[in-house]
């Protein structure tokens, strides 16, 4: 619980209030804490990857609940021309007085059909829809109860059976890396020996860099954090992509009851750090970086979307005055972008005409000589 320890260090000690020069705004963190507990938190997590990679099991293991009680899996025959659906499960969970409204967005059917061209389109459309809805709400008149359905994080499951990223993985991540925080995971890591895991992680990291995919970057630690935290952070960064194992069953291992998988040759414990990176994923996703993920979504992805949206709308307005925008838009002082473009076009045309004229003149000269 490193987060809590860090936070506790900032609580003021009561004897300081006797000090004459003490103003009292050091209680601000407390106030923030109280208010946020009262308001509650929300978090939207998307899981994506081919079927059979253990997504549902991992979600159950992460949040220690059973979200997928009665789901129906399709046969191979039905999946030949399956389209991607988007399903949402929302649960309210509470821990030590802190309420969390957790929404899991699932993408059944991704990568399952024989022809998977553009199978990520429903997913990008969904994310854009959530952004658009938030944009409208934010620009509306009554902004008291805005529902934030934007996707804060996308866990992408990479199959461990191959030698690295496959074309569909690359295409999916490139389509989404500017809309949502992507955290790539290596699924079903109990099929790889430690050497193989290391090789695969290096491979995947290289390929992510090679293809220019912008996955979620952990924020740098502040220099005043304690050493333990910095060490953890460094380890986390070197471990990506995280190799995870999930389990729906609790088994008996080494005298304790743990979540794990039983094999004839041994028992894999999900929470054992030497078996897999599940603990790191959980601590990163839930215990330390949940809020940062939300912040990046709001400050970076959503702002990009908003800027793009507004630009598109204003360019449409200057072209066609009949566009009826649902939002109050002020005429921006840069519609010159449009006229500039036109001017550039005309310039180019003029240049081309001049060149042709010159060529013709040359020919005439030659003929005359």
């Amino acid at each position, binding site marked *: 619980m490193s987060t809590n320890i860090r936070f506790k260090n900032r609580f003021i000690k009561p004897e300081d209030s006797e000090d004459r020069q003490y103003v009292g705004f050091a209680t601000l963190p407390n106030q923030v804490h109280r208010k946020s507990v009262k308001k509650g938190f929300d978090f939207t997590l998307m899981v994506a990857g*081919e*079927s*059979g*990679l253990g997504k549902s099991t991992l979600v159950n293991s992460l949040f220690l609940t059973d979200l997928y009680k009665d789901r129906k*899996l399709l*046969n*191979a*025959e039905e*999946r*030949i021309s*399956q389209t991607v659906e988007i399903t949402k499960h929302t649960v309210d969970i509470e821990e030590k007085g802190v309420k969390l409204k957790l929404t899991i967005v699932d993408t059944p059917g991704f990568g*399952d*059909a*024989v*022809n*998977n*061209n553009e*199978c990520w389109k429903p997913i990008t459309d969904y994310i854009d829809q959530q952004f658009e809805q938030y944009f409208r709400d934010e620009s509306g008149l009554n902004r008291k109860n805005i529902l934030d359905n934007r996707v804060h994080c996308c866990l992408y499951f990479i*199959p*461990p*059976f*191959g*030698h*690295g*990223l*496959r*074309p*569909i993985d690359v*295409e999916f991540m490139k389509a989404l890396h500017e809309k949502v925080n992507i955290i790539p995971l290596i699924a*079903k890591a*109990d*099929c790889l*020996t*430690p050497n193989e895991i290391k090789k695969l992680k290096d491979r995947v990291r290289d390929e992510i860099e090679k293809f220019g995919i912008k996955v979620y970057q952990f924020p740098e630690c502040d220099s005043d954090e304690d050493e333990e935290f910095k060490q953890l952070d460094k380890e986390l960064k070197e471990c990506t992509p995280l190799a995870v194992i999930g389990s729906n069953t609790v088994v008996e291992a080494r005298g304790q009851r743990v979540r794990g*998988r*039983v*094999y*004839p*040759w*041994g*028992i*894999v*414990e999900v929470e*054992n750090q*030497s*078996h897999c990176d599940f603990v790191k994923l959980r601590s990163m996703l839930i215990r330390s970086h949940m809020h940062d993920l939300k912040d990046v979504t709001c400050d970076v992805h959503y702002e990009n979307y908003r800027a793009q949206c507004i630009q598109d709308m204003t360019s449409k307005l200057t072209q066609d005055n009949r566009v009826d925008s649902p939002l109050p838009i002020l005429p921006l002082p840069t519609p010159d972008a449009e006229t500039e473009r036109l001017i550039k076009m005309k310039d180019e045309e003029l240049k081309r005409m001049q060149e*042709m*004229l010159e060529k*013709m*003149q040359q020919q*005439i000269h030659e003929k005359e000589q």
Partner: protein
Amino acid sequence: MAATDLDILASEGMRSLCLGGHVGFDSLPDQLVSKSVSQGFCFNILCVGETGIGKSTLMNTLFNTTFENEEASHYMDGVLLRPRTYDLQESSVDLKLTIVDTVGFGDQINKEESYKPIVDYIDTQFENYLQEELKIRRSLFNYHDTRIHVCLYFIAPTGHSLKSLDLVTMKKLDSKVNIIPIIAKADTISKSELHKFKIKVMSELVSNGVQIYQFPAEDEAIAEINSSMNAHLPFAVVGSSEEVKVGNKMVRARQYPWGVVQVENESHCDFVRLREMLIRVNMEDLREQTHARHYELYRRCKLEEMGFKDTDPDNEPFSLQETYEAKRKEFLGDLQHKEEGMRQMFVNRVKVTEAELKEKERELHDRFELLKRTHQEEKRSVEEKRRDLEEDMNSFNRRKVAAETLQGQAFQGSAQLSIKKDKDKKNFFTLPSACSLTAGRNLH
């Protein structure tokens, strides 16, 4: 008919006799065996599965050797088949083993065409054999048989069911080759999940009418083991190219932090069963099935396509030669017809292109004329301007000369004011030169 009369005669003449002593024809099987051993055996395996699923490792484990193999890339545009032939020897029995790998299978985003290269390869091997059979001078006894005897289909261990690509591919292959489905990387599925997974896979195969290879149960010597093995399909295998010390032996195994998976341990995986079935018990049967069932089916389809039948409309047995000749004539006629058609098309197209080119030429010429005219006009107007400017310049020069002479006279008169006036005059006189420079530039 003549044929059946002979039969009746023959069956009437067939009596079983008892032998008075040891004749020795019980060595016939041995003669056959020694002949086939001296000839050597050949076996062709096709491995179909996603990149990285463990095909090469399994081959290494099965034959207890290391076939050289580079890792395949995930970014192939299509499926490639890569056959590699190796000569193995064990206890003076030679085996010519060909392993055909499917490179790039399952990696593309659009996998609708993935099965085609595989089916084409199998058909090509059948075709080659058929061609050899139909030759006039043929040498089947030392023909290197490249027909695929068994196809090991590697299923990814998702734990749910077959993938859609697997189903589509197996349906296309089941009538051309003996398919043995295998669950690859089975050390990722626990025992209970494995049981459910196997049942699901088999039921999906059955409900979609995919015919996989059934181990033969007619021969009493192997019937029992074969039928028990049939119940274990698909085999869940684990392959390993490393050895780990277990007890006091080095065995092929995979070392995990939570335990060691031994490849040859029957309670860990079905590798031993696969090896038994594939190599030790049924190799010969696989070859027979390929020849007797799949190849014959292919041959029949191919010949029927070509128009051959076993019997005439009049029920007279057809001669292959005659049909062949007839077919050939027909084919040549077709070819000639096509050639004519193509020539026509070519001539037409040439005409059309010529017409287009002529049109374009005319257009260009017109434009050229137009441009020339505009150029002439501009030149004329520029010339006019030049003339005007020259006139201006000339008149200006005249005035300058006149002013100079006047000044000269005035200068002679008053010499004191000359210094300041000189400067003025100089300024005044340098002006025209500046003007003439710019005038000159405009002309060019």
